[in-house]
């Protein structure tokens, strides 16, 4: 079946570019499914839930990680139109995917779960869209749910974006109810793209993906001029030139086309093998008679959270490096540097956008690359200025500079918490304990509030979200964004076994939390480390000052009582097995620490997936 959308160079006035934005799980990808269906680009028998969540990890966890764009045909009043729709992720770690998508659009469907109302990422994504001056189409989803309260939440939305509650559309992405009307509204409300058809080509790269079969696939939105196959193009940031091998559209599978004109969204392939040669935010122009002014680019995503990744089996180190390199091809936000830990051996200090990003990366390394990994407790980046004026940027607690520190800075965030007003007290108490400063509070409706805090990122990545959820019985949602840095009274807590510091357990914490961290780790390690032939003192210390202490008592018995003639073979084999087991032990001084103890000690603050 061919449709109006199959051929490109559609007149811009018939094109609408929009994205779907929302809090996590409010139904963006399900709504996208219905759009794929009613526009006929995916046949009923080929349909599956969250069609655009293509990665295994997305399907398994039921969340979107990468934004996906699709070109759709849609008729309004007998007039054919082309819609470019982008489904975006809702999780805070992947906000940069949303910002990129917004750059390629004139409008945004703001989707809100009619049983939940506005949540923290609803606001965060709404504000991003407003900054980009996008037309917002407010929509309540899941109106089929018995718990849905569309009237209440239409008011909340109207209040926030300044429209009438009646203007808020109501759909069910599950049943498809109202989805056709929503697409009509998109055509009516979202402005058509504008651009100079006769000017030199300018196209914005909003995504760049490595594909084993096709090399790097670059997703672009054409602003001026046109992009056609076989022409030579130039990347404006580097001046590098490439020949275009293929230009196409996504609907929802890639389809080669004659080219792309003003306002159109699609992909190009040049045969480059490294996504860094086709950078997100760069402007593509023609090699000959190209444009002189690039489009405004994006800010590159910067890692916010660091963790050391170590192979359990030291000989897997080269495989880990290779796997990280491969993942990085598709993940500009992932960074890694080799590092060595006395306790864990050779590994990498990796930078992530957040805890979910860390967890997903680790998960993929283990499953897709068959690696068995230990990850150290996540930490943020600190800036330390010494009394002699030298500055240190610390991404690994064991690099904390000794000596006289004048000032220590830590990253802070602006965070938004939305919850039923009953929990205000509990939330404030928690935020205060986490060194948060209240910036403001607003009622979204009679019984729901939005609290704004400035809070150190280091506190958020610790166990903040879990504590927040448990104190609000799961009703609170959280969003945060970077907000520079602030000076803080931070110390490094070392954990010592038999007097030797175990680098993997060192942490940078606020002075007031040092004792708590030290006691917790010491107690945990006492439980996790098996008794040795000698007594093992465990200490937590700040510099040379011991703040907590535990002792692992010496083991008293390790001998099998009986050894008759028939036991000898059995005993030798048991010994061989124990010796194998010993090889998996890490020696910290003379103390044998099982790998599992490291994993367990470091993973209690297990990053949690869903927000």
């Amino acid at each position, binding site marked *: 079946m061919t449709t109006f959308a199959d051929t490109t160079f559609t007149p811009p006035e018939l094109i609408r570019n929009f994205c779907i934005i929302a809090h996590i799980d409010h139904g963006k990808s399900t709504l996208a499914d219905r759009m794929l269906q009613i526009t006929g680009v995916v046949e009923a028998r080929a349909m599956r839930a969250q069609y655009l969540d293509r990665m295994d990890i997305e399907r398994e966890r039921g969340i979107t990680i990468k934004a996906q764009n699709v070109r759709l045909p849609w008729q309004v009043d007998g007039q054919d139109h082309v819609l470019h729709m982008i489904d975006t992720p809702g999780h805070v770690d992947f906000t940069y995917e949303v910002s990129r998508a917004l750059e390629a659009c004139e409008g945004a469907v703001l989707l809100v779960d009619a049983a939940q109302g506005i949540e923290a990422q609803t606001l965060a994504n709404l504000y991003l869209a407003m900054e980009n001056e996008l037309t917002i189409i407010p929509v309540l989803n899941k109106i089929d749910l018995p718990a849905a309260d569309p009237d209440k939440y239409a008011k909340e939305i109207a209040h926030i974006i300044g429209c009438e509650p009646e203007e808020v559309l109501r759909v069910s992405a599950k049943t498809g109810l109202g989805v056709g009307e929503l697409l009509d509204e998109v055509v009516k409300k979202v402005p058509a793209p504008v651009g100079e058809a006769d000017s030199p080509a300018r196209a914005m790269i909003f995504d760049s993906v490595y594909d084993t079969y096709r090399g790097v696939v670059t997703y672009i939105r054409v602003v001026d001029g046109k992009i056609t196959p076989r022409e030579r193009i130039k990347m404006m940031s580097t001046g590098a030139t490439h020949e275009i091998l293929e230009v196409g559209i996504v609907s929802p599978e890639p389809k080669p086309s004659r080219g792309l004109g003003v306002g159109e969204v699609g992909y190009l392939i040049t045969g480059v093998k490294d996504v860094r040669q086709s950078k997100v935010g760069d402007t593509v122009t023609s090699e000959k008679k190209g444009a002189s002014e690039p489009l405004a680019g994006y800010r590159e995503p910067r890692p916010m959270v660091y963790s050391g990744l170590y192979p359990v089996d030291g000989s897997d180190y080269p495989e880990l490096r290779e796997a990280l390199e491969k993942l990085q091809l598709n993940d500009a936000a992932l960074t890694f540097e080799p590092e060595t830990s006395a306790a864990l051996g050779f590994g990498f200090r990796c930078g992530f956008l957040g805890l979910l990003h860390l967890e997903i990366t680790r998960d993929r390394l283990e499953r897709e690359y068959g690696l068995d990994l230990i990850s150290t407790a996540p930490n943020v980046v600190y800036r330390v200025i010494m009394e002699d004026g030298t500055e240190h940027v610390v991404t690994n607690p064991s690099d904390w500079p000794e000596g006289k520190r004048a000032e220590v800075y830590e990253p802070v965030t602006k965070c938004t918490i939305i919850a039923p007003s009953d929990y205000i007290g509990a939330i404030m108490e928690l935020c205060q304990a986490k060194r948060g400063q209240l910036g403001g509070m607003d009622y979204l409706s009679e019984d729901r509030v939005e609290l704004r805090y400035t809070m150190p990122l280091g506190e958020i990545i610790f166990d903040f979200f879990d504590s927040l959820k448990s104190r609000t019985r799961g009703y609170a949602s959280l969003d945060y964004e970077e907000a520079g840095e602030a000076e803080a009274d931070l110390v490094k807590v070392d954990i010592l076994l038999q007097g030797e510091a175990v680098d993997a357990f060192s942490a940078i914490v606020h002075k007031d939390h040092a004792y708590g961290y030290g006691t917790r780790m010491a107690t945990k390690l006492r439980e996790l480390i098996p008794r040795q032939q000698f007594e093992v003192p465990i200490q937590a210390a700040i510099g040379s000052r011991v703040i907590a202490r535990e002792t692992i008592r010496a083991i*008293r018995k390790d*001998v099998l009582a009986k050894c008759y*003639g028939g036991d000898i*073979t059995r005993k030798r084999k048991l*010994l061989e097995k124990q010796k194998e087991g010993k090889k998996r032990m890490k020696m910290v001084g003379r103390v044998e620490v099982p790998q599992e103890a490291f994993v367990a000690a470091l993973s209690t603050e297990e990053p949690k997936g869903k927000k």
Partner: protein
Amino acid sequence: MPSALPEGEPAPADGSLPASSLSGLGSRPFGIYVHVPFCATRCGYCDFNTYTPGELGSSASPESWLEGLRRELDLAASVLGTPVPASTVFVGGGTPSLLGAAGLTDVLDAIYQSFGLAPGAEVTTESNPESTSPEFFAGIRDAGYTRVSLGMQSAARHVLAVLDRKHTPGRPVDAAREARAAGFEHVNLDLIYGTPGERPSDLAASLDAVLEAGVDHVSAYALIVEDGTGLARRIRRGDLPMPDDDVLASSYEMVDSALSGAGFSWYEVSNWATSVEAQCRHNVLYWKGADWWGFGPGAHSHVGGVRFWNVKHPARYSSLLAEGHSPAAGREVLSEEDRRVERVLLELRLAEGLPLDVLDEAGREEAKRAVADGLLEPLDDRCVLTDRGRLLADAVVRRLLP
């Protein structure tokens, strides 16, 4: 449930052994072990290869077993070439005393006929106290047995109950006295300590009873919770607590101090004797890598660096032999390093200690550190476990080996 046999290579059907293992045969002590795979009931902690009449039905009996044993004795004599007189014999079980004095006499007669005994041979039989009597002891003494080992386990009624032992608390001591009265100079009592519910006072009472019995040898074993046993199931279900290692360590210390105070010396981690003559020479032969042939279902043998073991079920054992086949189920030919490892793990358990030259360079260095840690003591060119080291013997072995 009897525990599984080790994994090894298949053993030849004719029972033959590599020529290398036979060289020097007879220049080392040669022992004979006979396994009697019968018990009246099964104790909950025991994973030995033994069967109750109910389990066997008509598939095997003491008669079919004895017939098999005679055939295996002939087979062994022909495999080994010139018959080697045995310097020790140990009839163990299971419950050898279930065979009665007549049955045990038949066993020894069969050994006389096929192998013969070296002058001054030690001939031991294990016995369960409840199936012994003055007549029984007189009978086996006449047959030529020189040593009796009795499974006492404990003097506390509630401990015996947890262990499923059927004898009354006083019976083992009486049996030991009867054995001595029948002329047995060497009598052993087996103890198990650390049974769930055993209090220090229970163990003290058991030790008093042992000393009162006037025996010259004691074996005391920490209760091992073997996989697949009724005891393991009861612990898993939470009906009984798992023996605690610290309690086992204290119990061991109690045993050791009571026995040393009464003139016993340890000569192996779990064995004490009143003199060198009172030691069990047969067991020492296991620990020093000598040769022995184990007869009977599931019995293990060692001849010149080859270990082999028989099929476990008595019916299969007898039928293989009846068909003219070896009853061996598998074997392993030890490498030089295997033999060295075994020497370390066996000889370190002896009061005599381990010759340092058995260790490699790194092992000797580690031995020095273990001395510094108070686990080993140097003695001429040997190293011997200290009191604390005895309780950590397996850990020390792991340190001394690569």
